[in-house]
């Protein structure tokens, strides 16, 4: 248990600003995506193992609660992907560019690209949810 406390205290109290926040966000979004991925592989495999139950799983995903979670999931994947590409670029192609000012700048660009992708995507997903679940826009 002391390991858990030491690690969590380190996560919370380390003051590395942008680099630290993007490290934490990368971990949280990655874990969230991975946990969803386990469920998603299993529910999709219903089409072969339990085809009668597949529609029940899909109906769950169509609910409002899961619709909101889906918007969050898309943020997780977009941020994790764009930030992962940033890390892979610096590690594999340009390790000489790892410096504090460049990290601060590139984390901000990462967040900007993520939001530019996520905001229109979530607008379309919310439109679909309001159309199908609440009868808005003539649905």
């Amino acid at each position, binding site marked *: 248990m002391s*390991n*858990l406390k030491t*690690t969590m205290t380190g996560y919370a109290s380390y003051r590395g600003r942008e680099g630290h926040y993007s490290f934490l966000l990368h*971990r949280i979004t*990655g*874990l969230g*995506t*991975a946990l969803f*991925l*386990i469920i998603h*592989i*299993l529910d*999709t*495999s*219903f*089409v*072969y*193992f339990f*085809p*009668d139950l*597949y*529609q029940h799983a*899909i109906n769950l*995903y*169509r609910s409002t609660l899961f*619709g909101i979670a*889906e918007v969050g999931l*898309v943020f997780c*994947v*977009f941020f994790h*992907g764009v930030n*992962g*590409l940033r*890390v*892979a670029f610096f*590690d*594999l192609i340009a390790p000489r560019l790892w410096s504090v000012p460049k990290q601060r700048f590139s984390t901000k660009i990462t967040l900007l690209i993520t939001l530019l992708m996520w905001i229109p*995507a979530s607008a*379309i*997903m919310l439109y*679909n949810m309001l159309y*199908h679940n609440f009868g808005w826009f003539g649905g």
Partner: protein
Amino acid sequence: MTTNTRTIQKPKPNFETKSWMFMRYSAILLIPLVFGHLILQDVIVGVHRIDLDYVAIRWASIGWRIYDALLLAFAFAHGVNGIRQVLNDFIQSDRGRKIMHWGLFLLWLIVTAIGAIALIGGVRPIS
């Protein structure tokens, strides 16, 4: 004046180095695969238009099956290895890590096998 030179042999990459490389190379592959999957299925098609028939039509094309096989193989291995790297921060004893590594390996193997069987077997009709 003579210059002393010392050659250092590059150490052979161990498992952690290979896992570190795998995360970055698979990331580059996963960007088009996962972003494409998300934009197509969640945004353009939407969950309200996905059902058993949709999956059957999609998997009738071998190209989409290969696409999904690549997603299953790379995304899930990337994910499970990521969970392993996070848990390595919290579990420091050799014994604990060994149990965690084997547990995650089994999880990866079983879930990947289930997904692969469904992907190869395809959509079965409702009885």
